[in-house]
Every structure is written in C-alpha cells, then in structure tokens.
C-alpha cells in the first residue's frame, strides 16, 4: 500500500479520505486555497500545501498546482474526492504519467462515461437498458423541436459533458424549447466548456436508484447494492437511503449485474456508481459517476465496508480478495446533506460565519462534516457543509433516529437545509416509501414547521433584552454577534433559479 497520499479536494470529503488514510497508517497531504487556511482538512492532514487563490479555478481546479504539490511532497497516490478534478480524464492521465497512482478509474473510462452521448452508445452496445432518446448532439433549438416530436414530450435536454445537475432542462412543450436550449447550452459552456446537448425522453415520476460498484485492476468487480436517491430538489440530492424500499433481492441482483456489466464494458477500476432511473419495475441507465459519491456512507453503514479503504487498496494494485457472496447488507441507513441554504426562501444560498455549533451524537449517528466554530461560509465553494448519517436495524428506526439527530443539530450563523429534511422525514408518504424524484418539490417548505412560533417569539424578545443589558454593561463593540445573512419577503420574490436540470450526479 501507499505511504503517502495527496488528497486533491477540500471540505468533508477531503477529511473523509484523510480519516481512512490515517487509519491505514498513511501520511496524508492536504492542499488548500487561501480561503481554506483554517479548514479542517488543512488542519487534520499530516502535511498541508498551499495552492494560493480563493476560487476553485485558482486552486483546486488547477491540475498543475496539484501535480506540483504531489511531486514536491513525494505523494505516491492522488485521491481526487468528488467534484473538482475527480472526473477530469486529462488530469487522471497526467497523474499516472507522472508515475503517481490515480485513485480512480482509468482515464479512458472517465472519458467514455463523462460524455453522455458516448456513454449511452457504449451502454446500448453492452446490453445495458437506457432511456429512450437520441445519442447525437443537437445542432440548435429548431432541430431540437423536430427531434422532440419523434421522442415525444416531456423531453430532457442534457449537456453531453454534464454532471451535478448542470446543463439540464426539461421541456414540456415546443414553446419552451428555445429558452431551455439557450440556458442549458450556456450553462454547459460555462460549467464544462462544452456546449453539446442531446435529448432523451423525460421520465417524469421515476425514482433515482444507483448501484455502488468496485473493481480491482485484475478484472474482478463486486457491487454493494443500491442507494435510493429520489429525494432531490432541482436535481440536487438532499436525503439518500440504503437499501431502497422498492428493491427486493431479485431486483438488486438484476441491477447489480447490469451495473457490473456497465463497468466491465469500459474496463473500470476503483469505485463507481451506476445511476438508474427506476419506474414501474423497469430501470434505465442514466449515467455512471466515475468516482466516490457524496452519499457513499449509507452503503458503508449497511455493508460494513469502508469504500475509501477499498479504493486505496485497488489503486495500489491489490486484488479485491472477495467475491459478491461476501457482500452482505444489514439494516438500513439514511444520509441527510446539510447544505448552507435558506429553505423557506426557496433554497437560496446562505452565507455567514458559523458562530455556534452543536452536532448530534449517540448510537448509530455518524457525522461527516467540515464544520467548525468560526467557519466562514461563502459562495466560492459547494454549499454542502456536513452529512448526517444514521443506521438502524430497519427503515423505521433509521427514520426516527435521523429525526432525533436533526433535532440535536444546530448550525448557528448560517441557514441550512435541515428543515427541508425534517419535513421529508415527517411526511407520511415518505415514511410509507411512496415517493419519486418529484416528491421533495411537491412539499410546501416556505413556512417553518414545528408549532413553536410563540416560543420563538418569546426567545427572540428575551434574547434582545439580554443583549441590551449586556451592551449597557459593557461598551465593548468588538464582541461579535451571531448573524445570519438572509433574504426575506419581497427581496427574494424576484429571484428564481434559472436552472432546472434533470439528474444530480453527485
């Protein structure tokens, strides 16, 4: 195995990788932007290399800086986490060319799967079911209207280079095509530098179910069952589960076999996720994410397998050493993403300084977080601050445990997506397992719930009174107060997300 690895990422995932690497006795090398001088991943690594800059484009996205840091520190491997350079085939190739192990699939597999058009072709050839549609890039909005007639509305326009819900638009009638084409294409160019779009049938009320796979460098592969990821909003996942209520052992085997076939078709190595759209007992390939997913912990809790450890092992050339029969699933796990978002204001990004932090604990609660008191939450990076993961012997216990954990969580100084997750967990349809990818958007999240309105009013008045007394006692203006940057009432009415993409891909 490796002695030293570099983690080319930030936030909770950098810390996640550092943790397993430390447990394996490896020296860990963090890279950090100026903004992340105090970040937990910077502090918790053995070695930290400054990249300079504050924007991703000045730091975590600059392949040359990361490669230079790896060479300078003698890193034997680079783990890219998710996002940033994790699905950049050129970077993967450059890493391997530099004689450094790439903790990820071969560059060729990234390339095929990263291009939605090519991957649909490859999957069709390998006998993997795909969503009905066309695989060729569309020239312009006019051509799109023509093709849409053939496929039938609703239609999804997607960026060939897409991912993360960007560059995706749903079109329900011809009149919407022009605007959708423009914004999708613009977003695709801006996000991926590649404006090619393709089209497929938009399957409206499906479930998003994905299968975790792992391949070694010797042609062996196993899957670790599925994850249910239908609780999403504008195609950003909020809550994930393992297993899915609609997947029984027989379906699990079928989906797993297809997922392994997809991986073998591109000579996959390492951890990957094959995303399916599930509807009425049928499932269709959406895309393969050629890296670790945000939601990998739910699979870990249910299978007992440390996926980062497996990633590092197979990247070092070790054989998996076990087969599908060795993979067992026990109980149920749920993850909730804690994003810096103002839910009642329509999930607007929330920024501020974390003044106040109470993290949940106790039995079967796992916290993967980059939060610390003093963290400044800005707009330069992904809004995901933490993930709360619970395990229970069954889904009912897991749901109750997650509610309990979220009640314990408190992130003061910035708004989080917690209230949205609470609303989901309390919804009878969710508890019954009766939901699809439209479920979250169907909830009215504009009002706070809980019924503590009067108490909150009293607390606010008492807080104000105490503050007034304190400032009367001490004229110390330097005592900073917790403050949440908010956009309320009329201010937010006139902001609407232009994006309306199809799937998430984190």
């Amino acid at each position: 195995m490796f002695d030293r690895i570099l983690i080319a990422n930030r936030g909770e995932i950098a810390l996640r990788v550092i943790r397993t690497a430390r447990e394996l006795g490896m020296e860990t090398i963090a890279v950090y932007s100026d903004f992340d001088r105090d970040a937990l991943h910077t502090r918790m690594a053995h070695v930290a290399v400054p990249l300079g800059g504050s924007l991703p484009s000045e730091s975590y996205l600059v392949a040359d800086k990361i490669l230079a840091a790896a060479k300078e520190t003698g890193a034997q491997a680079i783990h890219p986490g998710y996002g940033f350079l994790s699905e950049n085939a050129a970077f993967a190739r450059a890493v391997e060319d530099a004689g450094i192990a790439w903790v990820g699939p071969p560059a060729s597999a990234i390339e095929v799967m990263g291009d939605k058009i090519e991957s649909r072709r490859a999957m069709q050839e390998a006998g993997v079911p795909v969503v009905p549609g066309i695989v060729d890039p569309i020239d312009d909005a006019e051509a799109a209207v023509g093709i849409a007639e053939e496929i039938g509305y609703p239609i999804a326009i997607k960026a060939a280079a897409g991912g993360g819900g960007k560059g995706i638009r749903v079109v329900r009638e011809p009149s919407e095509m022009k605007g959708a084409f423009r914004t999708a294409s613009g977003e695709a160019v801006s996000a991926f530098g590649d404006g090619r779009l393709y089209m497929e049938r938009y399957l409206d009320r499906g479930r998003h179910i994905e299968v975790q796979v792992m391949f070694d460098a010797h042609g062996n592969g196993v899957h670790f069952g599925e994850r249910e990821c239908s609780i999403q909003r504008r195609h950003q996942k909020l809550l994930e589960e393992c297993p899915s209520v609609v997947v029984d052992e027989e379906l699990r085997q079928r989906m797993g076999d297809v997922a392994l076939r997809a991986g073998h078709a591109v000579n996959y190595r390492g951890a990957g996720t094959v995303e399916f759209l599930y509807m009425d007992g049928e499932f269709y390939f959406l895309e393969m994410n050629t890296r670790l997913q945000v939601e990998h912990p739910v699979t870990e809790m249910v299978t007992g397998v440390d996926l980062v450890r497996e990633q590092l092992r197979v990247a070092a050339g070790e054989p998996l050493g076990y087969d599908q029969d060795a993979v067992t699933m026990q109980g149920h796990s749920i993850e909730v993403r804690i994003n810096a978002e103002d839910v009642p204001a329509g999930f607007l990004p929330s920024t501020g300084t974390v003044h106040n932090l109470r993290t949940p604990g106790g039995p079967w609660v796992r916290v993967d977080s980059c939060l610390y008191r003093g963290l400044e939450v800005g707009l330069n990076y992904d809004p995901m601050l933490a993930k709360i993961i619970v395990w229970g012997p069954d889904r009912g216990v897991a749901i109750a445990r997650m509610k309990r954990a979220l009640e314990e969580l408190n992130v003061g100084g910035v708004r989080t997506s917690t209230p949205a997750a609470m609303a989901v967990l309390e919804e009878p349809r969710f508890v019954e397992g009766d939901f699809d990818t439209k479920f979250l958007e169907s909830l009215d999240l504009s009002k706070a719930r809980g019924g503590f309105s009067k108490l909150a009013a009293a607390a606010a008045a008492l807080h104000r009174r105490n503050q007034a007394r304190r400032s009367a006692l001490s004229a110390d203006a330097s005592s900073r107060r917790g403050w949440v940057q908010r956009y309320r009432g009329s201010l937010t009415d006139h902001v609407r997300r232009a994006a309306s993409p199809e799937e998430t891909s984190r």
Partner: protein
Amino acid sequence: MKYYVDVNGTEHEVVLTERLGELTIEVDGEVLDADYHEVDQLGQAHLLCDGKSFAVSVEGDDTRVAVTIAGHVYDIEIEDERERAAHAAEREAAKRGGVVKAVMPGVVVELLVAPGDEVQEGQPLLILEAMKMQNEIEATTDAVVEAVHVKAGEAVASGAPLVTLAGRE
C-alpha cells in the same frame, strides 16, 4: 417593554415586565411561565416553559433574529414601539418600483433588458451566476427600466444595485 415580533410572517406581541426582580413574559396576552438561560453567549440557550424544556439557539442582532427549536428555524423580525412606527413608513415607500439589488454575490451572465424597456412583474431582467447556478432576476412589479447599473461579465457584491425600475401608474 413591548415587542412586535414577526415570526415567519405571523405577528406576535411579546411584553416583558420586570418587577421586584421577577420577570413576567406575556405572548399575545397570555403569561408564559418561562425561564430563559444563555448557555454560552454564542447562541446556545435553554428555555424552560411550563416545565417543558427547549434547547434553543438564538442568533441575530437587535432587529433580525433566527431562533432554532428542535431542528425548526424561525425567521424573526423584532421591533419595539418606536422602531415599529419608523419601519411602517419605509415599507410603504418600498412598494413602488425602486432598485432591484443583488441578493447574493455573483457574476452577471447576461442582461435581458435595457433602459426604457417596459417590463412586467416576474419578467427576467438579467441572469446572475452564483454558486455555479444561473439565477434569473425578475422584475418586482410592472415598471419601466430606468437604469441598468451593471454590465454582462461584471462581478457584483451582495446588495449591489442591479436595475432601477420606475413604477407605472
């Protein structure tokens, strides 16, 4: 002291009276048997109310406060009587057109209107990219575009004026 407390759009009147060291808390005319205790002055507090225990978190300044109770966040605007009178006048003025401001820092991707354009409420004025997402900024009312304060490609700070609208009578 009397406070007008707007909790997520619903107004409550809170009256705090201190007499002989005893604090009485009245919400909407009802007396609460409550004990409010700050744990760390960073925002963690504990509210005991009729024996019920609430681990609350309170952050904010004099006028805007966020209270978290059991995972639920309440957005609160709080005014005393003097402030209430002052704010009422401001609100009236804001209803007629005015300046559309950036509610978050971002980059202007595209301008969709020019000075002199007539716009309808809800019509996109420009696209602002923030958090890697493109956001359409819409007209707050039926209006005429009086001025556009930004250029495509320009980075704007939170609160920066974007477009000035003149209300149409």
